[in-house]
């Protein structure tokens, strides 16, 4: 979290002078627009904002933001972000990555930044495909998916970004949808306010190489049936009138409970959403929900506080300076056993 801006900014202040280069209809456009819209609300002066990315269609994102930006190499954005944020804790650092960049070549860096709890925001655009290299399957692609590199269908079991993040000890994990602007903006604000690593998986459509992967939850009409919107303190309930359902979690295992339109969910055993369980296992149970058997949870899975990496590092620096005084090079060079040869 960085200082507040003096004069109020507008969305267009965050638009860089570069032509935006994504295919027509790409979900990235909507995400970009919503990020640009929410930045003034977040209120960090734009000179204190840094967007860092790897390589991929999604990773072009920083080029279009009129903030500081670093479009680096494939998969390594979290490592660059670590250097930036650890060096300069006062900056607001955002990582933009894709399902290939962040979970294929970059999975390790993502795991480590999450466990270290560096105070950065990570936006993982999950289109379940490699867009930039023109359509190979990714680690989130479904088994059987036909792509250029899997003409007989993919045989890799996919990884779920939220489960992965929780397995890595993430303190803040959320899921949003490219085209659901208001919700996405809310998630962005929450992520920015979180004093540690905040990962948002954004379900993103790639109309060119994997069209309609998320159509069930993207389209408003089907969303009520397919998405479970998480709200802190509210029971895990979804579905419109006549189709109301809830999630119970027994011995750690989620199941579906049918609900009457006016029935009290908790009395039927439906769990109440709590973002701040110290144990990550509740959030993990939610993360295991997936179509077609279950609805897709959308919203904040987990938000707990732990000291952030750059904070603890700065604390060590500060404590050492208090204890040992500011570094004195002469004293260092002359420390320990020395001897003098007279002229």
């Amino acid at each position: 979290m960085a200082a507040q801006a003096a004069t109020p900014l507008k969305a267009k202040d965050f638009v860089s002078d570069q032509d935006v280069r994504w295919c027509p209809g790409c979900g990235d456009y909507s995400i970009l627009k919503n990020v640009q819209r929410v930045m003034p609300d977040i209120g960090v002066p734009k000179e204190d904002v840094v967007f860092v990315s790897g390589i991929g269609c999604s990773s072009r994102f920083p080029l279009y933001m009129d903030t500081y930006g670093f479009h680096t190499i494939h998969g390594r954005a979290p490592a660059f972000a670590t250097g930036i944020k650890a060096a300069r804790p006062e900056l607001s650092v955002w990582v933009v990555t894709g399902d290939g960049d962040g979970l294929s070549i970059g999975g390790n860096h993502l795991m480590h930044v999450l466990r270290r709890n560096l105070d950065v925001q990570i936006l993982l655009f999950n289109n379940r495909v490699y867009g930039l290299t023109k359509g190979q399957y990714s680690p989130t692609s479904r088994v059987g998916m036909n792509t250029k590199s899997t003409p007989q269908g993919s045989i890799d079991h996919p990884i779920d970004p939220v489960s992965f993040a929780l397995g890595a000890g993430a303190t803040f994990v959320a899921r949003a949808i490219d085209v659901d602007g208001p919700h996405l903006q809310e998630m962005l604000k929450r992520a920015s306010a979180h004093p540690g690593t905040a990962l948002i998986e954004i379900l993103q459509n790639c109309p060119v190489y994997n069209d309609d992967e998320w159509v069930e939850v993207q389209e408003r009409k089907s969303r009520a049936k397919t998405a479970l919107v998480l709200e802190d303190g509210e029971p895990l309930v979804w579905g419109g009138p006549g189709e109301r359902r809830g999630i119970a979690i027994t011995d750690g295992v989620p199941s579906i409970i049918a609900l009457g339109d006016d029935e009290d969910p908790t009395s039927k055993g439906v769990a109440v959403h709590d973002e701040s369980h110290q144990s990550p296992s509740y959030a993990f149970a939610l993360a295991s929900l997936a179509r077609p058997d279950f609805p897709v949870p959308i919203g904040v899975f987990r938000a707990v506080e732990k000291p952030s990496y750059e904070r603890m590092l700065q604390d060590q620096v500060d404590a050492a300076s208090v204890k040992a005084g500011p570094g004195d090079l002469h004293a260092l060079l002359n420390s320990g056993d020395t001897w003098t040869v007279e002229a």
Partner: protein
Amino acid sequence: MSQTKKPVEEIDRVAIRFAGDSGDGMQLTGTKFTESTALAGNDLATFPDFPAEIRAPAGSLAGVSGFQVHFASEDIRTPADHPDVLVAMNPAALRTNLPDLRPGGMVIVNTDAFTTKNIAQAGYEEDPLPAARDSHRLVEIPLTSLNREALKDLKLGARETDRCKNFFALGIMFWLYNRPAESTERWLGGKFKGDVLEANLRVLKAGHAYGETTELFPVSFVVPRAKIQPGTYRNITGNTALAWGIVAAGQQLEQPIFLGAYPITPASDILHELARYRHFGIKTFQAEDEIAAACSAIGASFAGHLGICTTSGPGFILKQEALGLAVMTELPVVVVDVQRAGPSTGMPTKTEQADLLAAVYGRNSDSPIPVLAPSTPGDCFHTMIEAFQIAVRYMTPVVVLSDGYLANSSEPWLIPDVGALPRQTVDYATDPETFQPYSRDPETLARPWAVPGTPGLEHRLTGIESEDVTGNVSYIAENHEKMVALRSEKIARIANDLPPIETNGSASGELLVVGWGGTCGALTAAVNEARESGQDVSSIHIRHLNPFPSNLGDVLGSFKQVLVAELNQGQLWRMLRAEYLVPAESLAKVEGQPFKISEVRARIDQMLGGGAH
């Protein structure tokens, strides 16, 4: 400790090798002897030779650990080709080290360790001591029992007791060479307490007394102070000097340091050392791997810090992709490769100089990076300051090539006067009116360093080819050609700042020996010896390997023959031939060991047509 009553003989120089099992504490013994020797005012050089990283079975050949220290009343540059004295704590140590000893040299053995089992484990068919009695001056001491005897009234376990015997041996050696024991005693006092402290202090004294009383040593020796440049000295290893050079760079450039590192032999100690200097504002980050280490350092540079990473060969090549990005985005970051013997995992504790071509050419596409190599342990300090000066002045990544020998060897080091160290101010860009990410300083061609937090200078960097001046993504052929040319011209211009290379010996003549990096001591010593014996040979030692100093071609051209000596299969040799078309010869040694002076002299003799010495 009292002065000896036995006669004292004055000698000019001596080289002692302590050798024993990894568990015998030979590195510590050698280090303490060295410190004491340094305080006694001798010039010195050391060579610790570790076994593989992992503990070998006790008593095995693979488990032998050695530490050689050479000290003199005159200027010396190497730990000596052949030690004069060998302290062998067990048969395995004797077996692996005896062949190196100078003919007729002194061998001090712990006879208690020469059991049938140990002798067999060392691969000897029979007890080697009788033969050693003939070939060398053998001093047989039952160290284990003497040590136990000295400690029998303390309540220490058998293991703890036996662990002190290296200090018994050290005590003997202190007596034999009239070294002061105070520094070691002080160190013990800081490190141990209670019975363990008492035990160590006691055997140190007991060893000393044993030397004085035993008939095995008729005389003791003294090596007078060396006549060296006045000033305050300390003993320093390359790794420590390197770490301190990084600290100094931060101070002298007034920039905070960010180190991203992943442990790897023999570079880990630099990370360990720097992790202790948080009060200098230094942030160290143990990354998940070498790639993340490099990326984090580059990230820190982008954020306006002095980014650095320290590693060794296998880790170094993992950083090349990230380094390519630093070339493209022109960010100042320093990468240290403490070279070790390879390829692949190779022999991590052994030295080599075989990453030069990888440093200069090992990235995809033409991506020029300046490369520097320190020549002595103490020089590592100054090299690091210079590396950061270049990085910041030219806005470029810089590679520093140290090696396993420099890393762990030590030498007395004239502590520099901080006031006399170079200072350099760093100017971040601040003016939104004139700022362009890829505008250039007309002299250095450096682009501006504009760091996050500066209002109005928001800009984006990318590893995609960028347009000249604006930095926008560009796929235009002419722009690419221009940027490729600018990147290499910028690095070439560094040569303008470099001092001309200086020749040790004559400015022209029959033979020039060329070296680089950690072989400086051995090469210079060999050439100086040869010159003294009347041979027409000179030498240069190249610190700047990319770009080369401007006068290098002329210097090479001033000699009839050129010999490039290096611990690899001829990497600098290739570079010099390619650059200057000089018909140089190559002296290539690839054994994981430093040059011996004699090896270099033999080749000089051969090239000068027959032995003069």
